[in-house]
């Protein structure tokens, strides 16, 4: 294009500004700088509406509707849970890709790579915490999204298929989260996944179950092959499947529109796509600003949470020879663990979840009630709430508090110094464990206040088990703390008791604790004490 005639016609300044505006309009796919200014000032668009152009010009916006019904843009109608799930998938992809740089899926390297990530990669722990927090939030948000859809009856005609793809997405999210569980290759991961895959073994007939189990694990026990398979599921197959179903789901959402609040239309009608001109809220700029603000605030909250309040756990390296005392599934599978405690593996692990899945998919066809109004759907809402309560009770039964108490002596020590994780003794740490022999019969006291709490708890815990367990009589414990090496203490627990037959029984367990070792809880305020300059305290 010839510049000279333009400059002759207009001024140089005008030409440059026009060229700049032209570039700007190309980048925004049709919104000029002046239009942005009018948007910010809250002015109405001209006619024809120039703010619709990006929806036809830009790939990323062509899947977004140009306007919404005013009622569905209220935050409390959808809580934007679908948007949040999508965003969390995006967060997981980004953080996951960064984590992949530092990770090799082999038993020799996986766990040491975790340690390297934590101790040698700047922001490595933050990335891991964000990824883990995002995974847990994604399960929660997807579930809440489903609950919202159920409570507003939005699965009803014509949205049955949208609901079906949503159920598939929920299952994919759970599998994604579960397949990622194995990758750190620690005890937590190894045994949770061993139990998870062993449920597949219960699929009848045996030949099918065994084959599925073998295909998932890659060998009779999880090893190098199993890790590689779970890795590929986690980083490739499941995300791609989720990607596909997400687009099908989203297409159906846009196609039918977001269902209106039920009192705004007649029973049996669906007017989501017939938005009167005066109720339209345009995506540009109102909905976009709203969604962007929500996602930015949400991201900030996630960052704050993972910097200060959330730390992904890492237990000791996977050891196929040693089954941990209490294997704990992630919280969103507590209900399944609860079921496994009260029912047979085939029933709890295959039939009931299978029936549950079929029921979930079948809800739009089982519920023939055309009305989406709460007062017309008492049966549906009450059964939904009952199902929710049952899930919560089952989840509680899935925690170690329910029905997995081991022998009293084992549990006393597990409470104070668990095999994995922190527990009160490791919490007070090396510096607060004075050397000596502490016999609960003599009610020992020490100089250290924090250690005294441990001694009291030790005594109280033994007394509590003695009171409720008839096979645990005249019990007492001896705690011996000795210096094994410079900077290494040995914490030796001995518990003595009389069996009902009057036979002396004893249980011994010992642990080592290094001066520099520290442990953390998954949820709770993080410890930043390492930022204090070394003061030479703690002898």
């Amino acid at each position, binding site marked *: 294009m010839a510049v000279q005639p333009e400059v002759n016609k207009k001024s140089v300044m005008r030409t440059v500004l026009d060229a700049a505006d032209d570039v700007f309009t190309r980048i925004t796919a049709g919104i000029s700088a002046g239009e942005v200014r009018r948007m910010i000032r809250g002015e109405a668009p001209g006619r024809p509406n120039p703010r619709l152009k990006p929806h036809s010009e830009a790939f990323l916006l062509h899947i977004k509707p140009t306007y919404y019904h005013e009622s569905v843009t209220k935050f409390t109608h959808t809580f934007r849970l679908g948007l949040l799930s999508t965003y969390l998938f995006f967060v997981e992809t980004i953080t996951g890709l960064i984590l992949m740089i530092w990770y090799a899926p082999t038993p020799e390297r996986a*766990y040491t790579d975790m340690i390297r990530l934590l101790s040698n990669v700047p922001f490595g722990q933050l990335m891991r915490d964000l990824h883990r927090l995002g995974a847990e939030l994604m399960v929660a948000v997807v579930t809440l999204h489903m609950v919202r859809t159920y409570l507003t009856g939005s699965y009803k005609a014509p949205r049955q298929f949208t609901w079906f793809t949503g159920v598939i997405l929920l299952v994919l999210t759970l599998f994604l989260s579960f397949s990622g569980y194995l990758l750190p290759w620690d005890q937590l991961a190894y045994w949770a996944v061993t139990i998870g895959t062993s449920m597949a073994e219960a699929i009848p007939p045996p030949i099918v179950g065994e084959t599925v189990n073998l295909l998932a694990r890659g060998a009779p026990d999880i090893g190098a092959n199993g890790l590689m398979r779970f890795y590929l599921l986690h980083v490739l197959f499941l995300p791609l499947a989720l990607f596909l179903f997400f687009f099908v789901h989203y297409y159906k959402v846009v196609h039918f529109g977001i269902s209106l609040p039920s009192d705004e239309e007649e029973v049996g009608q669906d007017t989501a796509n017939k938005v009167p001109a005066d109720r339209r809220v345009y995506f540009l700029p109102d909905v976009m600003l709203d969604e962007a603000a929500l996602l930015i605030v949400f991201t*900030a909250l996630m960052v704050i949470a993972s910097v200060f309040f959330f730390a992904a756990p890492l237990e000791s390296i996977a050891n196929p020879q040693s089954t941990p005392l209490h294997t704990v599934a992630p919280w969103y599978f507590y209900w399944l663990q609860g079921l496994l405690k009260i029912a047979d593996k085939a029933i709890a692990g295959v039939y009931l979840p299978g029936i549950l899945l079929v029921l979930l998919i079948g809800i739009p066809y089982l519920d023939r009630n055309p009305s989406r109004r709460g007062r017309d759907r008492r049966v549906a809402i009450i059964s939904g709430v009952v199902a929710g309560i049952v899930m919560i009770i089952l989840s509680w039964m899935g925690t170690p508090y329910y029905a997995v108490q081991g022998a009293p002596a084992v549990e006393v020590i597990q409470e104070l110094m668990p095999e994995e994780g922190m527990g009160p003794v490791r919490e007070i740490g090396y510096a607060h464990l004075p050397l000596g022999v502490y016999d609960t019969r003599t009610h020992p006291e020490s100089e250290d206040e924090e250690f005294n709490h441990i001694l009291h708890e030790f005594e109280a815990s033994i007394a509590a088990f003695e009171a409720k367990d008839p096979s645990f009589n005249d019990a007492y414990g001896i705690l011996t703390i000795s210096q094994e090496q*410079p900077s*290494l203490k040995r914490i030796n627990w001995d518990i003595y008791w009389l069996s009902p037959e009057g036979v002396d029984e004893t249980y011994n367990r010992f642990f*080592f604790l*290094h001066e520099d070792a520290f442990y953390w809880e998954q949820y709770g305020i993080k410890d930043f004490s390492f930022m204090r300059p070394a003061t030479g305290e703690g002898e």
Partner: protein
Amino acid sequence: MKRPWYRFLYVRSSLVKLLLSIIAIMVAVAVVLFQGIAEEPRMLAQTANWDGRSIQNGAAIYANNCSSCHGPDGRGLPGVAPALNSRYFFTQRLADLGFTGSLEDYVALTVAAGRPNNRNSQWAQMMPTWSAEYGGPFRGDQVRDVAKFVVNWEEEALTQTQETDPWQPFENAPTVDIYGDGGVVAMEPTPVATGPRPPQELFVSMTCVACHNLNLPQDAQNRGPVGPNMANLHETAATRVPGEDAQTYVHNSIVNPGAYTVESYTPGIMPADFAQKMSEEEIQSLVDWILDPNRPQ
């Protein structure tokens, strides 16, 4: 239209949304910057943490597998296995061997591959191979953990003097002054004591301790892995062979180990030369000591 109580959740004003977004971005950036400042000390603390946990794991493995020969405190057992918690080991051993790697590497190597045999060795026990790579029970990370634990004795070992260093010199003893107490010190083999040696010393120096546990009974719950436990031997010895009382049975078992082997144990493991290594008087005192129910532990 009625106004719901949760209407504060409806942010209507574009300006408020913009402000909220800007504040959120600033807060997030500030938090990430704070994390950035914390990164260096955090990584240092994590490095120390995982080294410490390695040592903890190594300590547990050592206590369960190594302490029976190398001693629970790493001071070795004369004639059975060398001391590790030893100044000589930390300052001179590698130079004497001509090993150019680090001591941790040397320990890891020895733990992993063991020693091929104990012919011409002054140590009664052969170091087994511990790494799964060479047919042992441990993974590579466990071997490393044990090495880290052993090397962690350094601080304590370096405070030892020649008198307190438990090192058992090899025949080709080093001639370097490592104790800084003047003069070149030849580490001579421990002189052979004259007169009968006490039984508690014999039990160790004759390497009985490597296979027999004195403090555990041999019963249904406990079973010595290589040789039977001995805490209840004073009760069971007389019942073993008809016509032999406890004294005779134990005496014969020492002098002629091939005579009886407790069922389920491998015959021929116990050395057959104790009659040559000990005087009759010493053997008798050892038998009495082993069978003494009130023997102090």
